[in-house]
């Protein structure tokens, strides 16, 4: 359960930082009638915070999967699934998609459309590439129920793909809104949210990739040998 505990420790640090700014040492029973300025700091808009909280939940989901993966590798003699080289190309596509959406969220006018289009196409490319990897692996004898390592690979990449798919639905809505609205303010905000979501999914994918390559277990084994 090391993976999920590490993840929760990082969440706890963020929560601790936030709590430290909420005046937890104040004595509200003595402070009636007066505001507490230190506890009322400006905060991000609700939609942005909502997306960030959702990303934390998604992070927790994949951290749990990661924990299960690491635990099973340790318990049973396993052979990891040999990943085809296409996985690196897909990773580059997702990286490009994330960057494009980031730029789209900050650009104005016609270039917004171009960057948004690039982000959408590369995300679709990532999805197609992932399906291609599945086909290759199945053809190579690593079917879904062939071995636990293969099952984990399909489950992890499948759930990650589902989240990207959800993001693509959101992107479709952004395109729809772009076509409807002329107000630049209402246009930019949802693109920024998509970009934030994509950054989150990119980070999660990079960590999952490390896990699927067996780096997580090697790292834990190294930690254990240092401790013992």
């Amino acid at each position, binding site marked *: 359960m090391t993976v999920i505990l590490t993840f929760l420790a990082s969440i706890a640090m963020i929560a601790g930082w936030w709590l430290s700014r909420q005046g937890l*040492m104040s004595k*509200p029973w003595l402070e009636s009638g007066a505001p507490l300025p230190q*506890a009322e700091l400006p905060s991000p808009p609700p939609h942005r915070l909502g997306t960030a909280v959702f990303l934390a939940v998604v992070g927790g989901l994949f951290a749990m999967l990661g924990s299960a993966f690491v635990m099973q590798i340790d318990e049973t003699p396993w052979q990891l699934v040999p990943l085809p080289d296409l996985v690196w190309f897909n990773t580059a596509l997702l990286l490009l998609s994330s960057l494009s959406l980031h730029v789209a969220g900050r650009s104005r006018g016609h270039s917004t459309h171009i960057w948004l289009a690039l982000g959408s196409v590369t995300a679709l490319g990532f999805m197609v590439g992932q399906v291609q990897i599945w086909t290759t692996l199945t053809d190579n004898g690593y079917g879904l129920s062939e071995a636990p390592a293969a099952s984990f690979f399909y489950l992890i990449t499948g759930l990650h793909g589902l989240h990207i798919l959800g993001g693509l639905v959101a992107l479709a809505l952004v395109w729809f809104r772009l076509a409807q609205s002329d107000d630049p303010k209402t246009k930019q905000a949802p693109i920024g949210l998509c970009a934030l979501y994509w950054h989150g999914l990119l980070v999660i994918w990079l960590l999952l990739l490390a896990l699927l390559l067996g780096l997580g277990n090697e790292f834990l084994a190294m930690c254990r040998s240092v401790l013992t």
Partner: protein
Amino acid sequence: MADLPHDTDPQLPPAEVADVMPPHAHGWWSHYVFSQDAKYIAIQYAATAIAIGFVALVLSWMMRLQLGFPGLFDFITPDAYYQFITMHGMIMVVYLLTALFLGGFGNYLIPLMVGARDMVFPFVNMLSYWIYLAAVLVLVASFFAPGGPTGAGWTLYPPQAILSGTPGGQQAGIVLMLLSLILFIIGFTMGGLNYVVTVLQARTRGMTMMRLPLTVWGIFTATVMALLAFPALLVASIMMLFDRLLGTSFFMPSLVELGEHLSYGGGSPIAFQHLFWFFGHPEVYIVALPAFGIVSDLLSVHARKNIFGYRMMVWAIVGIGALSFIVWAHHMYVSGMHPYFGFFFATTTLIIAVPTAIKVYNWVLTLWKADIHLTLPMLFALGFIVTFVNGGLTGLFLGNVVVDVPLSDTMFVVAHFHMVMGVAPIMVILGAIYHWYPLATGRMLNQTMGHIHFWVTFIGAYAIFFPMHYVGLVGVPRRYYEIGDPSFMTAPVDGLNAFITVAALTVGAAQMVFLFNLVWSLRHGRAAGHNPWRATTLEWLTPVVPPEHGNWGAKLPLVYRWAYDYSLPGAPEDYVVQTDPGPKSPAAAERL
């Protein structure tokens, strides 16, 4: 949606979020059925949770009939008994307690108590309820599926959960259960995002985190925990569904069933237990923390005294929330683990008793020399404290490995967790309904029926669960359809088992009185008027009771003080509402 005017009080910090009226309903369907108003969603959540809770209550009757009078009822077969156990446990823990505390009380109270017009994402909030309802319907559907619901026990341990020896294991039962859980978690996540972001972003001006009522602190912390813990159950459910439907072996080792080698192999059943209890233990506190928060407010209002140690109460809520993530393996002592791990988890389990004990002391000290009004909410709150302490004490026994191992599979554990997370939170739910029913409906619940309900429930619960501890201590195992030859027990328990059954039937009947009271008082209850309990918190200060769409009329309330200014010396009344800018408390006046 229109921007509303802001008040410009120089004493208060600027507003963080624009005051926007939430979307209005157009027509009957969007007003009452597909409502985006958190108050309606709360009532939908509560009604659904209570309805499915009654199903679970009837299931517990069936179990008790078998245990009290074995063999008397033909329709309670061994398979049916296991199905009753499973569905009773899962419904009570997830579909009743979690949904009612967070979806019901959370939706109703958070926006009102923090001074918001609604949840920040009303549409997502509405979706949350409908997905929850779908989860409940899928669960209920399993009663009518071929083979009936799953009988795997509420913990759904593999490999037995998906094998043919378990009721519903190779039929639709387990599949529907897992699908229902997945739906529940998706629905809850939608609601949970709302509760968290509303508390963080939509508080009215002057409502700092340290001026929030403890009810909001409890629900907020529990929601954060649930958002982090439910993914564990989600992952476990999806993986088991894969094992059951697609032939993977995440949790399935090599197995021989009826002399035949199954195609499974290489999986780890213990991994499921880790995932399940990584959700399962925080779940105890996901239910308990809202109860802690609500009971603090009930005690303070009905004892006309400020809550003792507010800061400490907040710290304890946060501390319990954090600690509850590192105690999960105390549910797995009998699965076998490295002794150092057992030591670690026993230690963390005992440490969590410290913030919990702080809360209990603070409740008792709140009552010390207070002007206690023995209203129904107060009676239930007192019932909670006593029950929680009783249940908590046996938790200290079970937290230790050497005591837990012999007691783990006995009725002692059943008695323990029913006291601490069954009866105790239900006491709070009932007290809270008696407390906030006047706000939601404008009518008081009938007192006579309420007193019958309280005393039968309280005394009855002890009549059920006190003897059950003893039954466990003499060696009666849990989850057994029939005890068989009783010679292994140190004392006979037939009479006690029959007594417990009669008590359980009586307590169940008392809940029918409560249900009748809820319906009867809607029309015939005494009119409540504004703020019948003379409380200080914002939910009682809406311009109209019951609160209307948008909660606050033209302007949001401004908050000048914490939520617990009761019996202030020199104040004209024994309570000062949160929106009252003066008089300052004597201590504050002295300090300034």
